[in-house]
């Protein structure tokens, strides 16, 4: 009897040690990929980083040298377009959800916003292809361009990815504004719409800004939705109704290319892209945490 109890106790301690070891291993294991990826970005990307990367456009395929200036410019243009087209709708949706969305229809919309956040980016790309790219011909008299693939379409695709992120953060930030703040405004006879625009939104503005920055970090790295919308461009172009290059697209192309200079530039571009994204998302999170804490 005593022997059984002792054996049981030993068995339980052994299982506990094994399980604890596995859990600690998992905890250490999750940082291995990050270290491996960031390490290789430094190891392969940093040596390939060259001023030409920022000042020169891609040369003829197969010829060493050149840079990714067009892709960097394109990414900035696409970010700008997606902000212009996505933010108004996203913030207004967030305001609706926070201030008028305590209804059954509000619940449905909130659910659909979350569903939209889960739609694969490649599907967004196809959707914008069918909706915008295929219909560009009908708009040529307005746009003055006969191009099917455009920065405009790419911007819409990125805006659709941004939309659910920014709306939900806006909603949450508005709900964090204390109810007494609203009531103080109502007590002065200020109507609801004016309270929202002059009291509540400004109070939540830094949180919303953070959400926007995080959404930018997310879409800056997206290539899948640009494949059949913005298409990419070997030449420097910042025209809204022309095909445009983007950093993630350029990395995708060069990663599968046969030439060593393409691989080097892919690593260097990835380094630049990751730095851009990390600065945005670390910055955003720091602000958010300072507010939350």
């Amino acid at each position: 009897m005593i022997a059984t109890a002792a054996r049981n106790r030993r068995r339980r301690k052994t299982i506990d040690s094994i399980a604890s070891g596995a859990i600690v291993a998992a905890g250490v294991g999750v940082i291995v990929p990050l270290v491996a990826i960031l390490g290789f970005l430094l190891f392969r990307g940093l040596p390939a980083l060259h001023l030409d990367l920022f000042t020169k456009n891609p040369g003829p395929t197969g010829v060493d040298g050149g840079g990714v200036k067009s892709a960097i410019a394109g990414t900035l243009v696409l970010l700008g377009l997606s902000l212009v087209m996505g933010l108004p709708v996203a913030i207004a949706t967030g305001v609706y959800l926070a201030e008028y969305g305590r209804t059954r229809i509000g619940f449905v919309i909130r659910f659909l916003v979350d569903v939209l956040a889960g739609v694969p980016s490649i599907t967004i790309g196809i959707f914008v292809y069918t909706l915008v790219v295929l219909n560009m011909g009908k708009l040529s008299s307005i746009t003055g361009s006969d191009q099917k693939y455009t920065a405009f379409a790419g911007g819409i695709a990125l805006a659709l990815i941004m939309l659910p992120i920014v709306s939900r953060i806006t909603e949450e930030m508005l709900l964090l504004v204390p109810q007494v703040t609203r009531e103080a405004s109502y007590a002065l006879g200020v109507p609801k719409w004016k309270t929202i625009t002059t009291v509540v939104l400004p109070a939540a503005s830094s949180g919303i800004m953070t959400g926007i920055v995080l959404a930018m970090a997310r879409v800056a790295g997206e290539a899948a939705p640009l494949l059949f919308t913005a298409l990419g461009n070997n030449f420097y172009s910042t025209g809204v109704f022309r095909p445009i290059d983007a950093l993630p697209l350029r990395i995708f192309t060069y990663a599968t290319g046969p030439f060593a200079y393409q691989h080097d530039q892919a690593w260097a571009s990835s380094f630049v892209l990751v730095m851009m994204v990390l600065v945005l998302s670390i910055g955003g999170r720091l602000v958010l945490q300072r507010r939350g804490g």
Partner: protein
Amino acid sequence: MQVTETPARADFQRSPGLLSRIDPRENIFRGIVTLAALAVVLIIVLMIYELTHEAWPAITKFGPRFLWSTDWNPPKARFGALPFIAGTLITSLLALIFGTVIGVGASLFLVEFAPPWVRVPVSYMVELLAAIPSVVYGLWGVFVLGPWIQKTAGPFILDYFSWMPFVHGPALSVGILSAVLILTIMILPTIVAISRDVIAAVPRSQREGILALGATRWEMIRIAVLPYARSGVLGAAILGLARAIGETLAVALVIGNSTNVPDSIFSPAYTMASVIANQFREIENDTHEAALIYIGLLLLIITLIVNAIARALVWRVTRGQITTVIE
């Protein structure tokens, strides 16, 4: 919220006798934000409509046979999506298994084991993993992970595990295994972030209840923590699955681009998302385009269902708490 009552009262105080008078700008403002919110509904409806419409030629031509035919022949305009459906299911389910085991383990480490000076930086690093763009994972997969599998991991697995089903060579730098490992890494942040919060939310009284009965730490986790947190952890895993199913470029770069149904963990293959990414720009005929959009539609339907399940689970656990998205 009850705020709708208050402005009416404020209005009344300001202009007695004009109870029915409501500032028209109130309605305009409300109308604008409501329209924006309804745009989200419109986008989803339009997305389903547009994809169905453009895929229609393929839907009518191949019907449901599209789902189980393995014949993908663009020049002859014959299309069946089974290789890609199989590729998506195999890669994402394997990634889900690995990602859940490692991710829940890591969450337990962060909540139950790690002192704050470890927990904070490790949590942070896991979140950084989420910020790295898909295409950078792909690049890393092509130049680091792939060669490692070809030269080191693959031969090792073939030496010791080739008695197992679906394990036979040759080990290439691209294929199912590369895609599974990349996807596992990519869904870890999703699983860790949510299951960490859910596990941390298990009340202390539950932990102490079992500890006071003489449980070891692992028994506490197994008996009190994981059962209590199970539906949230399940939701986290399914959100990870949704991400794996929809992941495109990283997979497109490492999966090997083969339209055959994979029969080994080293087989080159295609997933639904990656076949679209790679073939859509080199369309051979109208049916080819319709077939690819058909795949896109299937992908949309699958992710909508998976996401709806996951959201419902996570919502049930975190109902009433509003900070789930940003954390």
